[in-house]
């Protein structure tokens, strides 16, 4: 018994991720935490997307199930679970059954290496970024099998479009990623890293986020990735596989009920996954903003209060809306529910002001906040852009992003090579 407690406690003094430290207990705990956190994020994203999109389009969005439709995602999930699970008679049953699991597996497995903080990751792989790109591209396999197994025209065309699109944009995406890996090697030893944690630490060591490195090269790389990741996740304006005016619902047309909800879950967790890559590679991962301009212990304290303030603000918003609820007795439960939800959020906010708590969640908060900004961008795109045509989509991928990525890679390498000599020379000239 004693050794078990020692085993558990032994990790607490470690400054590694549980996977790297080889502690199975904490690794399992982290896996569960990430899984639960991701599920909550997908549920929240579902609600937020409907609400934000609705407000962009001068309508209200879900308002009936729970206060301001807060329970709508849960109601939807229940409905999907209770629906009849239809499998087309002509479908290839085994493949049809496996396809959604491949997609979900690929979308969730990538979170093994996502660094929420210097030690807040399930594990720190030395090939972390390769692992992420590799595993996330496995979802193409699931989509192709889903389209094939349905044995129907529209899903097949949708699946072909999806896979063509994802494969082509992965090339440009890879080039942008390589330019970041080149940047990580700009240190005394001259060795780069592929580890997700290592990439963030390299940004910390170089006192800049890679999006601002070698301006505008970092920004261009970030832009390429930001475009490619939208195409990679099949979202507007690259949502051709799901173009409802042409193909009804694309590769998952024949899926219903729980199987369909797995595709839905995978789509949203894939969005979060690629956003995490972008945040880690270009936006400093868990690092707080303005580390150079606003440094010192006072500013550290101010920034460490942000998580608590955010939750208090969310709680206050709930109370404000609870006060604005109609006073009719029918709305009593909703008002109490919303106020209760606000109270829970405010309580979390207060807990986050406690020094012990706020030091531990600071990095997770900044990481989540940056990812949330990307999620908002996804919704914003959907509300603003028309849809690309398929040939135009391929043109953007192969004729614009790919050459730009190649040139960027060469320029980044050149800039890294010439940085010190040019500085020397400038000193000499001036």
């Amino acid at each position: 018994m004693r050794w078990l407690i020692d085993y558990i406690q032994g990790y607490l003094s470690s400054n590694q991720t549980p996977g790297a430290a080889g502690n199975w207990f904490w690794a399992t705990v982290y896996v569960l935490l990430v899984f639960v956190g991701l599920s909550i994020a997908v549920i929240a994203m579902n609600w937020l997307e409907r609400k934000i999109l609705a407000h962009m389009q001068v309508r209200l969005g879900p308002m009936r199930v729970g206060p301001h439709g807060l329970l709508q995602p849960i109601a939807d999930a229940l409905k999907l679970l209770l629906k009849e699970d239809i499998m087309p008679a002509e479908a290839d049953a085994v493949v049809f059954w496996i396809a959604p699991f491949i997609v979900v597996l690929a979308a969730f497995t990538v979170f093994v290496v996502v660094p929420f903080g210097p030690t807040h990751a399930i594990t720190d792989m030395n090939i972390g970024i390769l692992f992420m790109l590799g595993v996330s591209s496995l979802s193409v396999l699931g989509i192709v099998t889903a389209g094939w197994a349905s044995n129907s025209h529209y899903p097949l065309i949708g699946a072909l479009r999806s896979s063509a699109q994802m494969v082509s944009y992965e090339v440009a995406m890879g080039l942008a990623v390589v330019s970041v890996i080149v940047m990580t090697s700009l240190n005394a030893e001259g060795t780069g890293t592929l580890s997700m944690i290592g990439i963030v630490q390299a940004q910390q060591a170089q006192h800049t986020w890679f999006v601002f490195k070698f301006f505008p090269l970092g920004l261009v790389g970030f832009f390429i990735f930001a475009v490619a990741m939208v195409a990679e996740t099949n979202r507007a304006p690259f949502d051709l596989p799901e173009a409802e005016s042409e193909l009804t619902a694309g590769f998952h047309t024949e899926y219903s009920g729980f199987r369909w909800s797995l595709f839905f879950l995978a789509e949203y967790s894939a969005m979060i996954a690629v956003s995490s890559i972008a945040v880690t590679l270009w936006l400093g991962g868990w690092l707080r903003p303005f580390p150079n301009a606003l440094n010192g212990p006072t500013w550290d304290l101010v920034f460490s209060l942000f998580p608590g303030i955010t939750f208090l603000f969310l709680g206050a918003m709930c109370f404000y809306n609870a006060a604005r609820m109609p006073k009719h007795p029918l709305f009593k439960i909703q008002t109490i529910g919303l106020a209760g939800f606000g109270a829970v959020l405010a309580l979390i906010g207060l807990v986050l002001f406690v020094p012990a708590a706020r030091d531990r969640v600071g990095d997770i908060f900044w990481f989540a906040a940056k990812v949330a900004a990307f999620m908002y961008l996804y919704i914003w795109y959907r509300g603003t852009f028309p849809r690309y045509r398929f040939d135009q989509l391929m043109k953007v991928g192969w004729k614009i992003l790919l050459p730009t990525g190649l040139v960027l890679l060469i320029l980044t390498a050149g800039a890294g090579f010439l940085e010190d000599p040019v500085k020397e020379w400038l000193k000499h000239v001036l």
Partner: protein
Amino acid sequence: MTDPNALSSLDLETPDKTFLDANELVINMGPQHPATHGVLRVILRLDGEKVLGLECVIGYLHRGVEKIAENRTYTMFNPYVDRMDYVAAVSNGLGYCEAVEKLLSVEAPPRAQYIRVILTELNRIASHQLWLGTHALDIGAITPLFYTFRDREEILKIFEKYCGARLTTHAFRIGGLQYETYAGFEKDVKNFVAFVKPKIDEYEELLTTNRIWLERTKKVGVISGKDCIALGVTGPVLRASGVKWDIRKAQPYANYKNFDFEIPTGLNGDTYDRYLVRMVEMRQSLRIIEQAVEGIPEGPIMAKVPKVMKPPVGEVYHSIEAPKGELGYFIVSDGSTQPYRVRVRPPSFVNLQALDVMCRGQLVADVIAVIGTLDIVLGEVDR
């Protein structure tokens, strides 16, 4: 031994033809398809994603409106015309009323003429707004639909206050108007004009310079002015191809010759030009409304029309510029209370002919854009 049937059954070289191997693929779009604006059925011949040709199958919404006319009196038929182009019911009513007035040789009094112009132009804006929303939705921009419907609501409110109906208004009567305007009509119209002007800029902000919108609409569904005339295409589609033909200017009816407005024309005859032409048309309609609402004269709203209408024996053709193009009514009278024959020339029906010409060589996704840009209403195509 040399049985040809036995040999052919062993011929393993015969490829297993599936729809992927075929070099020509025929697919059927509609009649239940989200992007065909109702119950249009399009049979597409495709080479991969390229359109080799297409055929429209219509008639799923046929109600025999023209035949109904032969069994109704002139007055009784009036509400039926609203059900043809239900997005622009007021224009349909105007065309019919003016055609019968021509047959009866009466003219609506000036006050009625002015109010007719205001309501028709309001309806033109409503029709274009609905077109814009659905057209953008087909191309994948979902937000303009909600913006345009929000603003179209204000027009429908004015209609509702005026005659009680929002969509199939039956706003006019043969010889003038049935209803005097309500108190505050002029104020409502002026408020609407001031309200909708910045809103049109808002739609343009979302689309006009949007890169993806430009790529999806420029050089898509091109049709030349000559082809348009050969096919009888009218309305914004004709004008976007560079032909300055608008019946409001060419053969002025109602009292359009009293108003100052421009006829916008395009250069390339592509989907983007048709979009721009309609956007300018909305602004020009606002100009007409502004002038008309300032100058509404006092006076009666009905001309002297007999209770039981028995037009003299003869025939008449009268056409007006509906939001979608030339809307013509050909009425034959045998001197009785019921028309002997009514033939409608609906703009959507004639414009739909151009779909084949516009879609050849384009991709499947463009067919959807072109159906949207033609601005057809199936109620009018099938009648």
